[in-house]
């Protein structure tokens, strides 16, 4: 069965992570994604680390696409771009506000040419206001967006997430939501539309449940280490073997099962801990008690008992073991991380598909090309002769 977005073409003018990851997901859903780069190449080529000379970010954010190079500052290439856009369904760009308009590919221009076009403008800080023209990358959005203020050891300032792509890709996934909504609406209206989204709003939306605490109390939620603010117990406990066990009692039926599993039946009947709100109110008393108790047996002991009782738990691995993780049966059986054969970079471990459609499966995941690798192929499809010496000279992949 073809993918859900079979027959949908995406003109992808986006750079770095936010836009590219969104159009990659559209590609994995079956769309024909044409990634358009300038001869100089997009931003991600210089971000470390590389694999066999190509930036991992570039590899990773560009599966299921065909890569072409157009010099949009040249009249001829701009005309080619417009031809492609005329036959596209979706247009994705995340340049700074004003930049795409200067290239003559703003929404006002291209929607005249193709009224069915769903056009995405993604920005860091929005398209109006004093910060609109500032560049935003994941760490600046982490810092500005309040995200760090609730994460860290108790009593700390709050810290960054040292995997610097989460808020980028969160924004990407929200772009995909909006594009799908607009494609669905288009089935009814026959018309495309302009979608705007920004990374700060995306970061705040992702923090909805934590910002709710602030709005309710007027007070900043503090970093709490591994602990959850509104469910208790829901944190890591150090065990006899000096390893940590993450435990989460997240529904009322789990509480008595938890108490029995750890051999503390009397806690079930303790009115201080009878409901989650009570446990949150009496957090320090309960946690002190549990901290002492968990120290009496090794992680494995507790884990077996809690697992048997159906209480969420896992050992927090302290030493990194990527090889173990990617070979973990839970990961491999569900294809959460998969191996991908590529012509340029060998076999890579890559992110699996986030959804499993039973009739129209997404994927298969295909590696994208090098910069401009499919220029000729794509232009030929559009009936454009690509074999000018000038063009071939420009298609050389970025040396860096």
């Amino acid at each position, binding site marked *: 069965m073809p993918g859900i977005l079979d027959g949908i073409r995406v003109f992808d003018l986006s750079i770095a992570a936010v836009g590219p990851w969104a159009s990659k997901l559209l590609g994995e859903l079956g769309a024909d994604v044409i990634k358009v780069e300038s001869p100089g190449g997009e931003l991600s080529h210089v971000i470390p680390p590389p694999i066999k000379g190509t930036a991992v970010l570039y590899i990773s954010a560009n599966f299921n696409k065909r890569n072409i190079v157009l010099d949009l500052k040249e009249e001829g290439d701009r005309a080619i771009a417009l031809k492609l856009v005329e036959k596209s369904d979706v247009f994705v760009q995340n340049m700074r506000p004003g930049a795409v308009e200067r290239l003559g590919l703003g929404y006002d221009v291209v929607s005249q040419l193709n009224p069915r076009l769903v056009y995405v403008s993604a920005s860091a800080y929005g398209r109006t206001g004093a910060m609109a023209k500032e560049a935003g990358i994941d760490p600046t959005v982490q810092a500005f967006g309040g995200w760090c203020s609730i994460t*860290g050891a108790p009593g700390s300032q709050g810290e960054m997430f040292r995997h610097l792509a989460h808020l980028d890709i969160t924004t990407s996934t929200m772009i995909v939501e909006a594009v799908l909504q607009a494609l669905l609406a288009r089935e009814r209206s026959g018309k495309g539309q302009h979608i705007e989204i920004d990374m700060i709003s995306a970061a705040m939306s992702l923090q909805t449940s934590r910002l709710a605490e602030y709005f309710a109390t007027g007070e900043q*939620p503090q970093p709490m280490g*591994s602990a959850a603010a509104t469910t208790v117990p829901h944190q890591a406990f150090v065990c006899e073997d000096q390893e940590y066990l993450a435990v989460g009692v997240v529904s009322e039926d789990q509480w008595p099962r938890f108490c029995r599993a750890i051999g503390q039946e009397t806690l079930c009947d303790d009115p201080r801990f009878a409901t989650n709100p009570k446990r949150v109110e009496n957090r320090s008393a309960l946690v002190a008690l549990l901290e002492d108790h968990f120290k009496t047996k090794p992680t494995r002991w507790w884990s077996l008992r809690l697992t048997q009782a159906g209480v969420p738990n896992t050992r927090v691995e302290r030493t990194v073991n990527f090889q173990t993780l990617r070979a973990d049966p839970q990961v491999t059986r569900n294809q959460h991380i998969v191996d991908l054969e590529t012509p340029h970079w060998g076999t890579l471990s890559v992110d699996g598909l986030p959804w499993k459609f039973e009739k129209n499966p997404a994927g298969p995941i295909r590696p994208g090309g090098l910069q401009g690798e499919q220029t000729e192929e794509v232009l030929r499809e559009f009936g454009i002769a690509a074999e000018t010496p000038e063009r071939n000279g420009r298609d050389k992949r970025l040396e860096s």
Partner: protein
Amino acid sequence: MPGALDGFTIIDFTQGLCGPFASMRLADAGAEVIKIEPLGGDTARTMGPPFIQDESAVFLSLNRNKKSVALDVTTQDGRKIARQLIDRADVVLEDFGPGRAEKLGLGYADLSQTHETLVYCAISAFGEEGPLRDQPGAELVVQAMADYTHSLGKIGEAPVRLGTDVASLNTGIMASQAITAGLFHRVRKGEGQRVTVSMLGTLLHMRGIMWTSMTDPDEWYGFHLDHYTRPPDEGYKTKDGHVYFGLRRGSSEDWDRLMLTLGLTDYITDPRFQGFGREATSIGRYAPEVKPIWERAFQQLTNAEVVKLVHEFHGDAVPFNDYPTLCAHPQVAELDILKDVDHPAGESFRTIGPVWNLADTPAEIKSPPPTLGQHTDEVLSGLGMNATDLQRLRTARVIS
């Protein structure tokens, strides 16, 4: 103006954070969401304090624009009513856990017998296959299993989680995509299907760049790789807070002026600062090593002064915001993301609004989060039940 999902009805059995975040996004986009709660209510109603007029702030933040029907689907009558509602709806969203919907007679195979075009989305904690398929999940447990705790905190000390509920909320976004994609396919091709997402799968997808980085990188520095070895990153300390900054443009004179202003002329020729500080800031190779040098210079400057200085040098800089400074920031006002919503008990509460701006089919907040069972009678009357029927069901503890 109608929303993109106007006219579609979703029967939502989910509780907690993940599923309700998904269905709220679809409701914002115009779908009618009928939230089926057990008679004791969604577990999120017990998350807290904080509570606002007896309702959990977390619950309120995730359930606007929905109707609540309190219905015990484990009873024969309850199941029958659920099926009647589903037969008239377009989408089912559930998080019962693999295999459990089938046991309740609410599995896709059963439902699609009478409703061929149903779009059915199931959310699980770890995926529907594998040794952990039957285990319940919790935010911290999934974060730890997906390796997130390794990009936070200090080596050898207690684990730290992301304060944001990413396992739940990022997965909610994937579910929202999956459902809209399923509806798009149904509108185009006339067929429904089952689609699944999982919390572990989502978090591992979000970290895909990491898995690829670790496969076989050309060199072992770069921001995606050293999260395991670096200390917590709190940004750059200034006189009155912390900032994040990056230098990557600017001219030679700008650079000299900046270093002179900061009293760092000794470092102008330091190879770690070459390229106008590009490798000495932000995600640069030497950034962690030279951080104390920048911080010495920032001691006498406020956040605002550092930001201004870096901007003059055409770099990017932002202050670290906590929630109060974020929500009071003029740029956030530009984004129009903070919304005041009516509280079911009267006064309004503040929350995060829809994140996308779809020009022709805008998302909207139309109704407050429901009290438990607020719409039971209204919705069941729509199935042709009269007061006597409702009384009988209420007495039999099927509804409330």
